[in-house]
């Protein structure tokens, strides 16, 4: 079979599609209702939930900041809050960018360029997210016992600290490896697409 034979097969699909029902006039009324696309915006994304958790975590540290009695803990607390805010901001910005439908009248190749650029930016954000998560792992492990029981974990329970940190680190290591493995492939494909569009 040659590629031109595919055309015949493709044409057969057209014949089948002609048997399909036409668009109902009521659909247009539904489309013009303001609720149609607002419904799309109510969609729950894992990123949105993640961002909310980050913001709640930052608020929790903020409300309990008085429990952090030394400069070391206060600096760790500020770093944690900043990281949590950055993580949530990155998530929300990413969602907003990915969700936006641009001008659909422009040529297809232009849309593909925008798509590829957005994808590259998204991958950069993912890298920043993973790096910040490593930093957050350390600061949270230091802060949690202090915030919940007023204890200094580093001096009072070295074993628990070592265990928690190791487990968290191992989890993040495997998680980031998995993320980067899939993103490396996507990145390569996106770069190839951009090269193709430039040629």
């Amino acid at each position, binding site marked *: *079979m*040659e*590629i031109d034979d*595919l*055309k015949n*097969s*493709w044409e*057969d*699909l*057209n014949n*089948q*599609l*002609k*048997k*399909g*029902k*036409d*668009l*109902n*006039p*009521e*659909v*247009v009324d*539904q*489309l*013009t209702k303001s*609720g*149609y*696309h607002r*419904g*799309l915006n109510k*969609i*729950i*994304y*894992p*990123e949105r939930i993640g961002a909310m958790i980050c913001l709640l975590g930052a608020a929790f540290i903020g409300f309990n900041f008085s429990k952090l009695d030394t400069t070391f803990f206060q600096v760790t607390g500020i770093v944690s809050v900043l990281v949590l805010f950055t993580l949530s901001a990155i998530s929300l910005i990413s*969602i907003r960018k*990915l*969700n*936006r*439908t*641009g*001008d*659909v*009248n*422009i*040529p*297809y*190749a*232009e*849309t*593909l360029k925008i*798509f590829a650029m*957005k*994808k590259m930016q998204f991958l950069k954000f993912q890298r920043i997210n993973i790096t910040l998560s490593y930093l957050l792992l350390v600061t949270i492990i230091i802060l949690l016992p202090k915030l919940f029981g007023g204890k200094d974990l580093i001096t009072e329970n070295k074993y628990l600290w070592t265990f928690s940190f190791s487990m968290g680190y191992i989890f993040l290591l495997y998680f980031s490896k998995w993320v980067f493995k899939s993103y490396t492939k996507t990145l390569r*494909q996106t770069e*190839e*697409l951009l090269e*193709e*569009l430039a040629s």
Partner: protein
Amino acid sequence: MDKKEVFLTAINNNKGIIYKIASIYTNGTEDRNDLMQEIIYQVWKSFDTFNQKSGLGTWMYRVAMNVAIYHLNRTKRRIPTVPIEGQFLDFEDEDNSAFEERLQIFRQLLDNLNLLEKGIVMLYLEERSYEEISIIVGISVSNVGTKMARIKEKLKKQITKKSERWK
């Protein structure tokens, strides 16, 4: 005819385009229906911007293919959208399995191409001229020819692998 009637006629005359684009750029019925809805919505939204410089079919291809690209980003990130009632393109009481199987084979063949190639070859299969493909995609006619030659080579290899399934 008012806008609504013109829109309905345009959609129904080009329903095959919408269905095939939605089928090629998605996996699974739910996602396909989701994309079809989004294409219809975006066509309606930008219907006033159709300037008649190109044919309605050409414009519809461009809009539908662009919406499909934007949809790719969202696909894995959302739960099903608000459904449009009306059973658009529903094949009631018919055995659709052979048709779906054929679409699936096309999807598999085209999945090995990048998004630019996928768009070009789909228009080629629709028997659009190189000039029309050039307008829809936004690359020169000679570039379309060069890319088509490369795509044919790629597809030939794919078809050889899958030829048994077409017998």
